[in-house]
């Protein structure tokens, strides 16, 4: 087993008690338990508190721009489809600034694992509303309460072609570790929206808030192959909040549809001499 000790790069500077610690630990544990060699994983993030995660995990890292983690990761995966690619970032990063990429990555079913640290707030910029802040929540930007509905990211994922859709909870590391392992092993686009308490700026969706509400779908015998049921669970938010796998299906991945990379990844193609005579002849 990969020794989890070797996966620590530096000490995280998140606030004590931040839900991001639980996600970091779960990710490291999943990598260790799956025995993925450090150099065979690329961890891509955007910008936000959560997006600092590549600084704390000793694998190949790419801390990109706000909202752009997915396209960077997709380019990397297409260039070397043998590599494990994990993307992590905030709810603002993924569902707001990068929302368009989120929609289209799912259509493609590219084999990437996407961890959304959903603290329902813009934390790094000190507490403004995010696309997943609950209606009525008061914060700096909305002193009278948010007047938009939160984005239904999980339902969108079910509708739009993600082939592994789940919710995790940063306060339940063993459960989240197991989910991340399954997501990485899944062939196709895997989304885990992770309830991540931000102890500094979100005083509504706290550890206690989630502990009182969450229940494990897999313990309830939820049929994650059933799309209608999956929609129901994806939209469930209130007295009860489900965690676990909401939807899962097997579908050909994006990479598998490119004969160009069936034999070897683009990164191993020999380009020392490219003969263009045939293409030039066609222009005569």
């Amino acid at each position, binding site marked *: 087993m990969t020794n989890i000790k070797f996966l620590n790069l530096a000490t995280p500077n998140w606030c004590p008690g931040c839900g991001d610690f639980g996600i970091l630990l779960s990710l490291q544990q999943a990598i260790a338990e799956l025995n993925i060699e450090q150099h065979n994983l690329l961890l891509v993030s955007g910008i936000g508190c959560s997006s600092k995660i590549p600084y704390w995990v000793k694998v190949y890292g790419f801390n990109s721009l706000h909202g752009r983690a997915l396209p960077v990761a997709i380019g990397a995966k297409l*260039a070397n489809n043998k590599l494990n690619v994990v993307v992590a970032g905030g709810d603002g990063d993924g569902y707001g600034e990068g929302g368009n990429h989120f929609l289209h990555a799912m259509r493609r079913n590219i084999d990437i694992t996407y961890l959304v640290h959903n603290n329902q707030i813009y934390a790094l910029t000190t507490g403004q509303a995010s696309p997943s802040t609950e209606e009525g929540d008061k914060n700096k930007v909305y002193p009278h309460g948010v007047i938009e509905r939160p984005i239904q990211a999980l339902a969108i994922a079910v509708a739009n072609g993600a082939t592994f859709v789940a919710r995790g909870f940063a306060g339940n590391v063993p459960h989240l570790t197991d989910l991340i392992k399954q997501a990485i092993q899944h062939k196709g686009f895997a989304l885990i929206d992770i309830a991540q308490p931000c102890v500094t700026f979100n005083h509504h969706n706290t550890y206690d808030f989630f502990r009182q509400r969450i229940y494990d779908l897999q313990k309830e015998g939820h049929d994650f192959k059933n799309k209608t049921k999956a929609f129901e669970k994806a939209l469930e938010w209130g007295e009860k909040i489900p965690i676990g796998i909401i939807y899962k299906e097997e579908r050909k991945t994006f990479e598998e549809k490119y004969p160009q990379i069936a034999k070897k990844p683009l990164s191993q193609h020999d380009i020392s001499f490219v003969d263009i005579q045939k293409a030039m002849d066609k222009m005569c």
Partner: protein
Amino acid sequence: MEKNKFSWKLGGEAGYGIMTTGLIFSKACTRIGLYTYDYIEYPSLIRGGHNAYQVRVEDEDINSPIRPINLLVALNKETVDLHKHELTPNGGIIFDGEQINLSDLGRNDLKLYHVPLLKLEKEIGGLMVMRNSVALGASFGLLNHDWNIVEKTIRDAFGEKGKDIALEDVKAAKAGYDYVKSNYNIFDFPWKMEKISDEKKMVLTGNEAIGLGAIKAGVKFVVIYPMTPISNILTFLAGYDEEYGIIVKEPEDELSGINMAIGASHMGVRAMTATSGGGYCLMTEAIGMAGITETPLVVIEGMRGGPSTGMPTWNEQGDLKFVLNTGHGEFPRIVLAPGDIEQSYYLTRHAFELAEKYQNPVLLITDKNICESKKSLNFFDNTLKNIRYGFASQDELNKGNYLRFKFTDSGVSPRSVPGMPNGLFIATSDEHTEYGLYDEHIDNRIKMMDKRFRKLENCKKEIPLPALEGDADAEITLVSWGSTRGAILDSMKWLRNAGIKVNYLQIIYFSPFPDEAVLAILKKAKKTLIIEATKNGQLADVIREKTGFVFENTLYKYDGRPIYPEEIHDKVRSILKK
């Protein structure tokens, strides 16, 4: 009688295959050894607007469109109304007299060739686009081109897959060809063509030359969101994806496009994207990221009329200063600009080399008149090989303590790529340490900035120096960049014929800028004229910023239309009072 020197224009409603017909005309001319330059005009509409395809033909190399035309093929009345004033005396109009009435032409120095395009088309098969082929055949009949060559060119244009369509088109063209020959004395029409050589030449656009340059450079990942005038780079390369093992992707937007390209390049493959002004605006943040993460990247920016959506299908050179200042903050930007189709091939190839060598974004600016104009050209150099630059070997990595952003004298640090053992690092848009951890300390910041800019200093040592073309003891030095090169070269021929000595400085490498060499040339010039397709003169600003030199005369044009060699010729003569 004028042999092998004429200009032909086909005009009609958009959406009826005018571009295809125009290209066949041009290729059929090059197949007898002649040289062509094709210029197209069209509005940003799919159907209903006016399209025009102009082919200039000569027996020696030509580089630009000219305004006068000798034979106008009018598929509708609008074509005649828009272009009749461009016809030279004795010029001809091919038109369908059963469909349009030219009684209001207002010129009696022209030759009118009625050809029943619609009727002939109906007799053959009745497809709207066949009308073009009838007109094409009629044109070649008048010009007395060899029918066998016309037929073969049409067949080749449609290839194996389009065999059946080609058959119909050949029939239609033959009907037009025969019609003019049997109904008119074609020798009344003063322009004729005759074979001068069997040597094969290509006819291709700047976009296709960029595509070929990229293929030649070993591009493996191309991700382009469509936008005029560069969309055909995408479609051209898409046609070769499996043959050359390239992933060609149309992303959801330009933000995605550029970031995907960065992700792919991060893995060690040669990657590129292309766009025009509006899309480029969206890409700028990511280009800065390529700068700070030291990721090689080739970005093609094809200019069109701005600002905003502007004049999407017309030419302008208004993005120079924008591209030179791409993105916020300071990072090395390598910027090149080809001036014609041939340079587009070689510079694209060079762009990939520079990007990899200096681990930096390379921005290649082109413009509508290069992207979408076609020219006959000899084959490009196919012997060139690709050298890979800047990768750390596995042995080096195995020695331990690898640092991706190591401070080096050259500023370039050997790259590992994800997947290689012992090469871990973080690429980050934050300022960072040699490993890639974010870092805001004074000492590190200064060293990292200096390291990145050392790359630009070294790049400056290897870029080719600008050189004058034309007469050494010129009375006037013309200066420009981009597509204006073609019109300048052609106007120089005319000026020389008039006994005027003139030379030309084209700026190709903009960043790093060869300031000393440029200033040395300009200081020696007797008179100077700067020529740009802009309102305010951006090249003039850049040269003044870099060298302090101020131009004496300017020729700026910003109506979207090409700067014609006639205009340059006239301007030079008025400056020299000759």
